[in-house]
């Protein structure tokens, strides 16, 4: 790969050489320049010296726990950051997201998934021109007129349902924790009232998804939150 100065640079902080090699393969094919750090300290140094475009941080590092690296980094830097974690550590994922990580990926991960997450993270720092309309599947959302159409027919959304939809579209392809959504929509006192969210998600899906038993766009991230997937993978069957 030739080094093109315009390519966004990804810093991978992971102590496993094999994971770093795999990430390099995936990321370089995806058009990114890759730098590696094998420890938390080295990673922090690299961020300070090179200011990469995105950071991929493994939570299980040998020297400083990944979560500490993240907290230290967030003291002075708002660089987009994706954490890598393993199955069964929902608590640490939520802690990471609360501490300022922008998204997470569970090992073992899918290369396509990783690139999609990075695209979503980069879109956040380069927001497309505030667009007045958004569409997915057969749904059209017109923010200017505050109107939602499905198959060309108007869909009646309550103001909360509409606010929820707007939140998802603004942060599309990015995970939103229960706490974040509840705080944004119902205020800080409602942070733990997950049943509000479950109820409204069910209503929103009922109005906008084709198959409630296999939602394609409004996806559940178990134990963590929800993600609005703007371009779901085409799945046979």
């Amino acid at each position, binding site marked *: 790969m030739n080094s093109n100065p315009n390519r966004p640079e990804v810093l991978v902080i992971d102590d*496993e050489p094999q994971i770093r090699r795999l990430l390099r393969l995936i990321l370089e094919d995806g058009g990114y320049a890759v730098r590696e750090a094998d420890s938390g300290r080295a990673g922090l140094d690299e961020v300070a010296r090179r200011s990469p475009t995105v950071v991929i941080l493994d*939570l*299980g*590092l*040998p020297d400083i*726990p*990944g979560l500490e690296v993240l907290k230290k980094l967030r003291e002075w830097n708002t660089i987009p950051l994706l954490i890598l*974690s*393993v*199955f*069964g*550590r*929902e*608590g*640490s994922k939520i802690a990471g997201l609360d501490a300022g990580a922008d998204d997470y990926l569970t*090992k*073992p991960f899918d290369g396509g998934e990783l690139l999609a997450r990075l695209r979503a993270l980069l879109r956040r720092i380069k927001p497309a021109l505030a667009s007045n309309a958004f569409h997915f599947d057969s749904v059209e959302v017109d923010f200017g007129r505050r109107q939602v159409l499905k198959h060309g027919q108007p869909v*009646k*959304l*309550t*103001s*909360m349902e509409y606010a929820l939809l707007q939140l998802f579209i603004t942060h599309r392809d990015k995970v939103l924790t*229960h706490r974040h959504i509840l705080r944004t929509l*119902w205020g800080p006192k409602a942070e733990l*009232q*997950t*049943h*509000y969210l*479950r*109820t*409204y*998600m*069910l209503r929103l899906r009922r109005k906008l998804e084709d198959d*409630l*038993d*296999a*939602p394609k766009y409004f*996806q*559940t991230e*178990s*134990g963590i939150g929800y993600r609005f997937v703007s371009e779901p993978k085409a*799945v*046979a*069957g």
Partner: protein
Amino acid sequence: MRREPKDGTLAAPAEDAGAASIPRREEEPPRELSSPREYLGVLVVIAVVTIVGRFAPLSYAAFGHIYLFTVIALSLRVGRRPALFAAVVSALTWDFVFVPPQLSFSVPDFDDVLLLGTYFVVAIIGSQLTARMRAEQREERRRALLAESERLHRTLLDSVSHELRTPLSVLNGAAERLSSAPPERMGALGDEICTATRRLDHLVANLLGQTRLEAGALRPQLDWCDARDLVASARRPLEEALSARTIRVAIPDELPLFRADAVLMEQVLANLLLNAARHTPPAAAVRISAGLVDDRIFIAVEDDGPGLPPGIAEDPFRKFHSSRQGGAGGLGLGLSIVRGFMLAQGGEVTAGKSPGGGAVFTVYLPHTLHTRVPEDEL
């Protein structure tokens, strides 16, 4: 632990799950009386014999023999020291209470001394016999436990190595072919690699789940859950494994939310679905239903297969208890985890026969009411 567990570290706790620790834990014979209680028991028995004897019109010599029987009986039940203690107390009581002059100590004659001597001999021989018998029983129990744990260990090793080797062979074979395979084969090889990694991932999740259960490290995070959402999320990663299946979901719209740990519930449902897929012919349909009965939420996974085979049906949730019929395989952890996770969340799981003769697994969770959800306007 500071580090997150890396994949490689999972093998160690998983091996520990093989019940190797059982014999050590139960080595203490459970039914043996503790010493102070034995001494107390001895005193009580002798006191009862003495009090009853005071009202019986028998000669003092007859009482001497009654005490002898008492010492024999006691020495067969208690340890050596309490048995000797029984001999001493019986000798003194007999002398004090029954040997004339009554209610005072007297110097016994030769016949009496002989009898008293017998007390001690009997106490020693009897307690020795008892000790030997107990040791034998303990040894037998230990051997039985060891055999059981060895059986579990063998089963675990057999199935772990089978379950690990199969996807590993696929990975190895497919990866090796990748570099030399014609381009039109690449896609198929890649798919095989993905299937094998998913299988390994699921295996690791189950081994991890079982280890967490056994270590008592499971802390369910109960939160409001929606059955439809749980079922959809559980199915999402299984799309490929279940792609050939007809799955019908019937969840009533008005089913209330309930409290559960979403992550655990997904693994529970995924295990039940994979279990149905694994043990039924590919054409068999799988039905998922949910409802509210007697203040309990239930979610049932029902299939059209042959039902639970005899030998499994009695306790399908037992660990490493898997039927190997038709190459179905599996570690036999899936259902054990289902039960463990359900119990941890305050629920339960039952297994039964569906009306069509297939298997049906039903998980239950308590239903509680949540506070009102704020309504808003159109």
